[in-house]
């Protein structure tokens, strides 16, 4: 997954997974959380989710909880670093939203 480091922008998939993992949650839970919270606008495929979870674990933004590999279902939780990254993204989104409002005006529909 490409996350634009220079601009600090996260992909939507990344940001949504970070939000989903603010409480301990397993893979299926993440998919459900995203689909429910975006009212079906974003439906994450299992393969994409698998890749994203691995990438985020490598970056140390989320981590599995519980013991060894042989857990039936792995739960994931956001790390301190992950929370920081998510907060930065929130700030960026608010900023860009303000800018859009200034230029384009308020949202009508």
């Amino acid at each position, binding site marked *: 997954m490409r996350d634009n480091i220079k601009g600090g922008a996260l992909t*939507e998939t990344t940001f949504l997974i970070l939000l989903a993992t603010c409480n301990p949650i397993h*893979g*299926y839970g993440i998919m459900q959380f995203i689909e429910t919270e975006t009212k079906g606008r974003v439906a994450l*495929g*299992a393969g994409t989710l*698998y890749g994203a979870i691995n990438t985020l674990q490598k970056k140390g933004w989320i981590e599995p909880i519980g013991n060894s590999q042989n857990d039936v279902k792995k739960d994931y939780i956001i790390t301190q670093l992950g929370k920081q990254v998510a907060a930065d993204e929130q700030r960026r989104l608010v900023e860009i939203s303000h800018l859009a409002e200034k230029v384009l005006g308020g949202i009508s529909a």
Partner: protein
Amino acid sequence: MKKTVIKYFIDFTDKQEKWLNEMAARGFRLVRCGKLMYKFEQSALAEYQYHVEFVGEKSHTKHTDYKRFLEDLGYRIICKNINLNWSIGKVRFRPWGDGAGKFATSPGAYSKELLIVEKRNDGKPFDLHTDTQDLAVYFKVVRNAYFCVGVMGIVFAALFTTSILTTFDFAWGVLPKWCGGVLFALVGIIGVFFGTKYALIAKQYSELGKTNE
């Protein structure tokens, strides 16, 4: 009612997936499959949905990990081969593989190049890859596998039609050597054709990925 079908797909992801979904729509659920054989049992019409995923680049460890991840999500997984080799206990070199996935052993990741993923039909489309960057990465892997086989086919065809392979008998000398040339040329053409098909799909998603997710 049970049904057995003998079939092989050269377009191993798209066509196979389409066919399995057509079978499911007619009320046939895939029970298991062999190298060329598919066994179905009767189910309700369109009770299941299928997705065929290429995982031939993955090492045995990653293959197992991915499979378990999908099973945890509640999908049923059936492993499927692409190759048509009946050998047991061999090691294969797969240049398109990723890391340890370059070598496939049997038993291991060999002959399990595809995952047939089954889920109960919930009326929503069934895709494993949903963002453009991820789709581009996935189709590049499929493209590489086809191109790799295609290039190898062309190289072998060239070896057979020139005099380089003088000491080697095609099909133990039962068939004349030009049969080997034709066979490998065919493999080469098929590989390049489908390699191009998936290259174009990958490129489309790469382009889209520059502005959209």
